[in-house]
Each structure stands twice: as C-alpha cells, then as structure tokens.
C-alpha cells in the first residue's frame, strides 16, 4: 500500500514536470511580448541572450498607447463586433448542424459536401466577390458588413456536426416518443450535451472576431468605428516601428481574449464532473 502511494506521488511529480515543460515552450512568446512592453526607452529589445526581466519596469509604453489612440472607443467597437460574432455563429451553426448530423433526408450528403467544399477555396480569391456582394446589398461601412459574412461558417457547422454525431441515438428517440417537438429536442436535449463544443466554438469565434483585421479594414471607412486590432495597427507607422509600443498594444488586445477563454473553458470541467458523477 505504501509502495503504491509512493508510486502515485512519483507519477504526479512526473505529470507536473511534463506539464511545466510544455508550458515553458508555449508561453515564451507571451512572456517575450509582455517583458518587451515593460521595457523602457534605454533598454535593448532584441538582445542576445534574451533579457526576459527588464532592468527597469515601466508602464510608459502603455501610457503612450493609451494617450495616442482612443483605446476605450476601439474597445467598445471590438466588443460590439465580438458579441454578434459569437452569438450568431453559435446559434446558426448548431441549427444547420443538427439535421446534417441527426436526420435522414434527401440531399443531405450533397449539402454537407457543398458546405465542406466552400471551406476549401482560399479566402484570397473569394475576398473580392464577397466585397462586391457587400457593396451591392449596401452594407459598406456598416458593422453588418463585417458581422453577416461571418455569421455562418462552414467550419462551425462541421464542428457542431461532429459533436452531434457522437451522441447516442436513444437519447432523442425516447424524447420523441414522449411527444417532444423537434426544436425542443434540439434546444433542451442535444445542445446541453455538446456544451464543451459550444464553448470551443465560442472561444474560436471570439478570437476570430477579435483578431479580424483585414475585413474590417476593407469594409469600414470611418476611423471612429475601427475595432481594436485595426486601431492598433496605427502603432506601426511609416516612419516609426517602436517594438515596445506594439508589444504594449498587443498585450492590451490580449486581455479580453484571456478573460473569455477562462470563462468558457470552465464548461470543460463541468462536463467532466457531470459524466463522472453519472458514472
């Protein structure tokens, strides 16, 4: 018994060592950006060996960014875009994925294939046609012109379909026998079962919307409506390339993503608990 406990502790230690080693490799760019953003005017940014801890820690880069750009306004713009950029794809993609995963009907395979096929054409060539459509329907310069093209993604449908596929048949059969309506099955039975995937899609949609840069640039013309990432590009001017300021801007843009990630990822744990409890 004692031997067993000892083995367990050793295992736990090894487990944590592995986790930490991987963490070191993946966290480097973050640390580097963070430390750069805290470095003062008199400290070299690119030095060898790298200096992760600044000689003097200063917040002046953040202050400069804050003073040169209307950060709060950009923030609000970004949040508006992100809210729609998460809600719409999550609802619409899980709607479309439901029949594709759980129902039998004519043309299902063809529709699925077409949806998949649209993912395979590189965005560089569909950009101009999409732009022309937005222009034609009169959405140029508006947030709708940014939100609507991303409201349904083939990727999101595919992701939700795969999640729905893994649910056992019996679940909805019994509900149907009980006389539940189809939309009720979707909303009350199936969606709660794929919560972790919804969380994944939400995180990805949020990041996608938050970091979306080229499309807002093409659609928007009034700088006051710029989202944060687009606004931050102003830090890279024609005559200036101050890495410290860019780093500080990148850190500011990162904070909301971290919050959203931590918020949604708890659904992974919840789901883990529930399945363990049931067992």
């Amino acid at each position: 018994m004692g031997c067993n406990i000892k083995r367990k502790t050793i295992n736990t230690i090894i487990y944590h060592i592995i986790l930490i080693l991987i963490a070191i490799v993946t966290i480097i760019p973050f640390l580097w950006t963070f430390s750069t953003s805290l470095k003062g005017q008199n400290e070299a940014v690119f030095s060898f060996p790298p200096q992760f801890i600044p000689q003097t820690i200063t917040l002046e880069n953040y202050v400069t960014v804050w003073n040169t750009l209307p950060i709060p306004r950009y923030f609000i713009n970004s949040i508006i875009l992100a809210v729609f950029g998460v809600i719409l794809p999550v609802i619409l993609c899980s709607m479309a994925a439901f029949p594709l995963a759980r129902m039998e009907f004519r043309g299902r395979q063809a529709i699925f294939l077409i949806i998949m096929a649209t993912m395979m054409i590189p965005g560089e060539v569909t950009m101009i046609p999409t732009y022309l459509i937005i222009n034609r329907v009169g959405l140029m310069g508006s947030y709708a012109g940014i939100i609507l093209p991303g409201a349904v993604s083939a990727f999101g449908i595919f992701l939700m379909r795969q999640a729905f596929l893994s649910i056992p048949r019996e679940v909805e059969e019994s509900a149907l026998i009980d006389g539940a309506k189809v939309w009720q099955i979707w909303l009350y039975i199936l969606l709660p079962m794929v919560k972790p995937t919804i969380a994944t899609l939400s995180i990805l949609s949020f990041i996608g919307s938050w970091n979306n840069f080229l499309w807002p640039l093409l659609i928007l013309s009034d700088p006051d409506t710029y989202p944060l990432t687009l606004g931050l590009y102003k830090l890279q001017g024609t005559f200036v390339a101050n890495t410290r300021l860019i780093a500080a801007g990148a850190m500011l843009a990162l904070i909301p993503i971290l919050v959203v990630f931590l918020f949604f990822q708890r659904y992974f744990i919840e789901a883990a608990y529930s399945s363990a409890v049931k067992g």
Partner: protein
Amino acid sequence: MKKLKRLSIIALSILLMLSIGCRRVEQPETPEESREPEQTKGGPITFWTLSLSPTFDDYINGVIDDFEEKNPGAKVTWQDIPFDQAEQRTLAAASAGNLADVINLNTDFLKKLGALGALKNMDEAAADVKDQYFEGAWQAGTVNGTAYAIPWYLSNGVMLYNKELLEKAGIDKPPTTDKEAWDMSKTIYEKTGAYGQTISDIHLYLPANGIPIVSEDGKKAAFNTPDALEKIKFFKEKYDEGLIPDEILLGQANIPEWYAQEKLVWWQTGPQLFRQVKDLSPEVYEKSDAAPAILGSLGKSSMAVMNVAVSAKSKNPDTAVKFAKFITNSENQLNFCKIVAILPSTKEAAKDEFFTQGADSEDPAEKGKYYSAKQLENAIDFFVPVENISQINKTINEEFHKVLLENKDPQKALDDAEAKVNELLK
C-alpha cells in the same frame, strides 16, 4: 446506383455554379453610367494616405482645413491605410468602384495602377505645376511615357555608421566608394565579426552603376552585359568570403535591429528611419554618426518617392487634382519636412535654408537630413518605368540569388533572367 446518384447531384450543382458564375462575371463589364459632366465647383472628395496616422494627424488635418477654407464647397474626407494592406484595400475598393479620389501610392503600385488606366494623366491635369517639381521625382510617376502622379515626399539614402566599431577595426573614416567599402568590410569582418557593405537585391544597384535594366524604349532587357557579369562575379566572391550573410542577401534580416545589435557597422537608408535605431538601442545610436551615401559608378543617388495620384473615375476630378497639387505644393511640403526627416519634391521647398542646416549636428538624423538634402540635386528614381516592374525586379534578383546561394553559373543566370524579362515586357 447510389454512387451514380451522388455523382449526378455533384455534377448538377457544379453546372448550376457555372451558369450563375457566368452571369456574375459579366457584372464588371457593364459600362459605367454615362460620364457625368465635368464639374467646375468643389465637391466632396476622399483622400487615402499610407500609414501616416496618428503621428501626422495634426499636419494632415491642418492641410485639409486650409484647403477647404480656400476652396469653398470642397470637402475632404481623409482615411489612413496601413501600408502592408494598402494593395488589397485599394484593389477591393477599385473592384466596386469605390476608389478614393486622391490616393497616396508607392512607386511600383502606382505604375501598375497607372498602366491599367485607373489613374488620371498628370502630365495633362497638372501641366501647369509640373516645372515646380524635380524632374527625377516627377519621373517616378511615369509608366510607358506618361506620368500618373504628382511626387510628394522623398527620401534619399545616406549612411548611418557605428564610430566605435570602425575604430575597433582600425578605420578612422567611413568609406566613400564602393571599392573602399568592400575592402573595409573585409577588415571589419575579420577584426570585429560585424558586417559592413552588403547586398540583397540588385535591381537598384545595376542602374546605379550604369547598367540599365531595360532598354530606352522599354521593350527589351538591357542588363545582360559583360559589365553586369563582372559585378555578379564580384559579389559571388564576396559572398564566398563570408561578407554577405544569407539573411541580408534574402532580405530576411531586420536591418535596424542588426544595426542596433552591432552586427552591422553601417546602414544606408533615409535619415527618417534612423529613429528606429534610437528606439531599439539608444546606446548604439549614441555611438553613431551620419555620412554621405556611397554612390554607384553613375554618381547618382537613389531616391524613393511617395506619390499622390487621382483616380480616373473620380466624381470631382477638378477638386481632386486641385487637392493633389495643394498637398504637394512647396509650402505644405516644407511644413511636412519640418516634422519628419524627409525631403520635398519641389525645387523651391528644397531651397529653404532649413535643409542647409544640420551639417555639424550631434544628432545623426539631423546630419543625415543635411547630407540627403545635399544629394537631392543629383538623385533619381531608379525604378524602371514599365508596368511589370515588380515581377521584373523579382526575376533578376532571384537569378542573382541563385548564383550566390546555389552556385549557378553567372552567365547562365543573366541569360535566363534576360529571357524571362523579355517575356514579361512583351
């Protein structure tokens, strides 16, 4: 059976796509609504710049206010576009006919748009002011014999060098000729491990040394000469001696960063960029000084021009042209030059005593500005005035890189490049 059905569905949907696709592509063909009568009065125009906001917000807004005041009825909407995305932004807008009236363009993109007929002929529209600009700068806007832009601000390469590193190598003065530079580089490399003279692309080096890229009439490649062969062999030698690092040759190195890390002893660029070194390493900037650029055998310095063009489809062409002339006039350019170390494209502005100051300045950027203004009389834009310029440059540089990196025979490389460039010029 099932497979057959599936196949036929796919085939049908592709057919459907095609039929809709055909109709869609006709769209751009539909003729523009009948041309509006030329307006004489002012009206709203849009103005795009490349990465100038927010640093120059006050300046640009000031110019716009001034213009609107002097031209009642005119309304200028300014938008700044990140440099890296400018081409995509411009092309997307052009596809839907939303191009701005007045556009700030760099030289090679300007040539592409000009050749396609997207821009107004400035030899005609701005004929009255043409003489005010340096001829070399005006040439930058030319493609196939017509100017499609008015030159705006310029930059002209000078040298930023590291005094301490030169001293360490036992050299007291920065080089003034190409030969001297390469000889010094060898000593410097051996003594300090830093690089001196290097090369990455040769599309500007060749014309600066009297080897034009294309013939006068713009119809044929002109660079396949014994002289060019000699130069390429020389670079190969230097490369084999280890004086040209791969990262610099391939344009992979972030040059200001290398300079700031003291891996480079000198950097030839416009003085407006010296500030980047100051940002990266104030310490190294302290030890630096400015010197005149090393010129090629032609004795001309190479300048980079930012241009202002007017869209051919502008709804208020008169106001647009007027604004293009206004923002590039001597007074406005001079004011611009006073806030950043760039040079004006008008002769009168360049005469200002502001540009004759700074010869003894402690600040390399100030001193650099002085040298670069002094070189201005003698500067030209070495870009070839033809449409396919970026591809031509790319072809020549790739063949050059093959010689250095892959030991390709220099004559064979020149022959291959010549054949490809001739193909592009057809």
